[in-house]
């Protein structure tokens, strides 16, 4: 609540449809999963970038409405796009129609791939919810669709202390890489590191609110990483996003996972 839009002295984002910074007094914060143009049957809506962006925004709108929110309360949007030119030509105007005069902070990334090869765009949001966190559970994890997948579409943090983890890679304490060329071993090491950090911060795996998984190859991650992830969360999933990218800090790294978590005040 108590949102402040931050304009720097040099407003480099002038006329670009987003805010350089937005600060809030964090009472209730909603993190959405990365949403796409997926239809209820699991296929991707036909019609290309415009149709996928429309469908993605409608699904995000449903997640916002479930939390009693709207697009004017979004403080951050992250766009993962496989074709930037198509987005500029056909996607941006669709998004603008949903945001109206609202201006969140924004990051737009051109990525190699998304969870389904037919996906052209994926969008996730961070939202400042207007009402009081008092007398609510620390975390509210929810779905607005019966998607049957291993994540929640929205997670609300009610008055908690947010924990931001650095992206974790399969790094041993001595600086060597665990599981060179081995997806399963890297997945295990990454989650082992995340587990240690969460414990040190007074959190558990159930405290995870949002997860972003950056992989060099989605098919390999599905084959070897998903089971490790499932064992780690044991059903108590965060909102999540899976993205295929070109590279990480060292050529040996196959996966990097970043987590936002929350513990009670």
């Amino acid at each position, binding site marked *: 609540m108590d949102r*402040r839009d*931050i*304009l*720097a*002295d*040099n*407003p*480099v*984002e*002038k006329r*670009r449809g*987003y805010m*350089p*910074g*937005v*600060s*809030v*007094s*964090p009472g209730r*914060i909603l993190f959405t999963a990365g949403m796409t143009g997926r239809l209820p049957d699991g296929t991707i809506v036909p019609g290309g970038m415009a149709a996928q962006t429309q469908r993605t925004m409608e699904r995000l709108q449903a997640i916002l409405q479930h939390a009693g929110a709207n697009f004017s309360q979004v*403080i*951050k949007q992250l766009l993962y796009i496989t074709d*930037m030119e198509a987005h500029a030509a056909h996607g941006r105007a669709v998004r603008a129609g949903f945001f109206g005069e609202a201006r969140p*902070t924004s*990051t*737009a*990334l*051109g990525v*190699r791939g998304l969870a389904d090869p037919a996906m052209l765009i994926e969008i996730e949001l*961070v939202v400042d919810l207007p009402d009081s966190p008092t007398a609510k559970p620390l975390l509210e994890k929810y779905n607005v669709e019966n998607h049957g997948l291993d994540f929640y579409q929205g997670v609300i943090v009610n008055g908690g*202390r*947010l*924990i*931001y*983890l*650095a*992206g974790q*890679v399969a*790094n041993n*304490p*001595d*600086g060597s890489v665990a599981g060179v060329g081995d997806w399963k071993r890297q997945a295990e090491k990454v989650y082992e*590191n995340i587990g*240690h*950090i969460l*414990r*040190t*911060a*007074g959190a558990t795996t159930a405290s995870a609110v949002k997860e972003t998984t*950056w992989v060099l190859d989605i098919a390999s991650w599905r084959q070897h990483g998903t089971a490790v992830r499932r064992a780690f969360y044991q059903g108590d999933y965060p909102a999540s996003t899976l993205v295929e*990218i*070109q*590279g*990480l*800090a*060292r*050529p040996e790294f196959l996966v*990097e996972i*970043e987590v936002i978590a929350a*513990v009670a005040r």
Partner: protein
Amino acid sequence: MPYTTITPAEVKPVANYKLATRMEGGRLLYIAGQVARDAEGEVLGKGDIRTQARQVFQNLRNVLQAAGGDLSDLLKITTYITNIEDFPAVAEIRSSVFPGELPASTLIVVKRLAQPELLIEVEGMAALD
């Protein structure tokens, strides 16, 4: 600086950054991905990662200062670059911008950024008094 640095005994970072930060109070600031545009919106340092990296961190600092904070208030940053070969230069400039330990940090190599000339983008969150 209303945050705590989380330092587990069992995990070491790949470079000089915090493994995690926990916000303990204050205001939460989200900063848009900063790119090497000047006040007129022109991309600076086309093909020049060093010029772009310096401008990006200056822009990041400008937003923090406009919000009443500074680089030391950052909880986490994410650095997106388009060529892994640029990383050593980015790491060097980043270390000069953050004289001590970096905030919690993620590095990702993406296919491209909003415009093809952009070589680096950095976003972050901060906890402000």
